[in-house]
């Protein structure tokens, strides 16, 4: 009695397997299955431009950095804990990219212009990677630079501490594409490898000419 259905069952089972294998293969080939490690902007849009200062007394509009992927983070040199952790993570990102590291710029923007001169922020970030760009400016420039990503930062007086005051600030990392469009937001604590995977995916979407 078994032999009555065994052959058709095998055929159907085999057919299903082949069908599913094809689907699996398509899923593999279809790049849109990439899951970004951060929060993807629903619509990639250019952000409002802003201009900050570098250590060489040079004004740098953010838009002048277009042509490469830009990872932007905000913080301050007085920060002993979260900011160095973020910068160390970002230095692992560019190290992991190997020869592709030139396709990415890392920009660290001070939200503490009172303490962070352009020289000081540059010295701070290049301690993590020589290619990192540290930017500061006047309080007005910093306010304008915080706006596009809705970065919040507030000064907190700390009487009784040698710190004098500390800054509360958003600790996200933002990814812009070479056209200057905001694509992904990464939370603090993200794995360097996760960002590398996203960048490699994006590189694959638009290979270097």
């Amino acid at each position, binding site marked *: 009695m078994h032999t009555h259905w065994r052959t058709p069952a095998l055929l*159907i*089972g085999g057919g299903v397997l082949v069908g599913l294998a094809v689907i699996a293969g398509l899923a593999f080939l279809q790049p849109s*299955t990439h899951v970004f490690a951060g929060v993807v902007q629903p619509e990639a849009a250019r952000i409002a431009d802003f201009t900050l200062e570098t250590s060489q007394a040079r004004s740098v509009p953010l838009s002048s950095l277009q042509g490469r992927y830009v990872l932007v983070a905000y913080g301050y040199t007085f920060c002993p*804990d979260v900011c160095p952790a973020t910068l160390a993570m970002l230095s692992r990102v560019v190290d992991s990219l190997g020869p592709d590291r030139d396709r990415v710029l890392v920009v660290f923007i001070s939200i503490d212009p009172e303490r962070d001169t352009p020289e000081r922020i540059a010295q701070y970030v290049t301690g993590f990677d020589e290619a990192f760009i540290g930017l500061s400016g006047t309080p007005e420039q910093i306010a304008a630079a915080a706006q596009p990503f809705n970065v919040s930062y507030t000064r907190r007086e700390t009487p009784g501490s040698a*710190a004098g005051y500390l800054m509360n600030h958003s600790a996200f990392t933002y990814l812009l594409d070479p056209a200057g469009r905001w694509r992904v937001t990464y939370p*603090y604590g993200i794995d360097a490898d996760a960002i590398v995977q996203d960048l490699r995916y994006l590189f694959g979407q638009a290979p270097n000419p």
Partner: protein
Amino acid sequence: MNKFMHWMTAALVAAALSISACQPAMSGGHAGGDMGGMEMGGGPNEGKVAATVGGIEIVDPWARAAAMEGGNSAIYMVLKNTSGTADKLVAASGEVAAAIEIHETKMDNGVMQMQPVEGGLEVPANGSVELKPGGYHVMLIGLTKVLKAGETVTVKLTFESGASVDLTVPVMEPK
């Protein structure tokens, strides 16, 4: 249940496995994860007792490498209380920085907040407290020298019990 059902089940399971295996390895698993479990934590988790002071064991201390003299950094460790009496880390001092304080970082909806720990950091009786990136830390304010991985720094930790210890702390680059 018959063999046909077995086949279908096996085929579906195999297919599901192969589909998920074909997905890029990345997932959003780290997004919004709790800060305690993050790999940025860096320090070695060997569980080595570096010093004992009173009933407190100081486990795996490390200082974050920092390239800028005059800048800041932090020292992390686990404080383990082997006694039945609660204690507090009340002060830290040393020549490595102009000032050394006990601070806490908190993350509130993506906003980093840091503040001094008022009145000392409690080490519960028969319990422990972890100083780690994104949490409690011994804050070094105004480094008197660059902190290079592989070197050590010395800080004196003082507890509420009155006991204190000169602790040698290795400088590390968090991995």
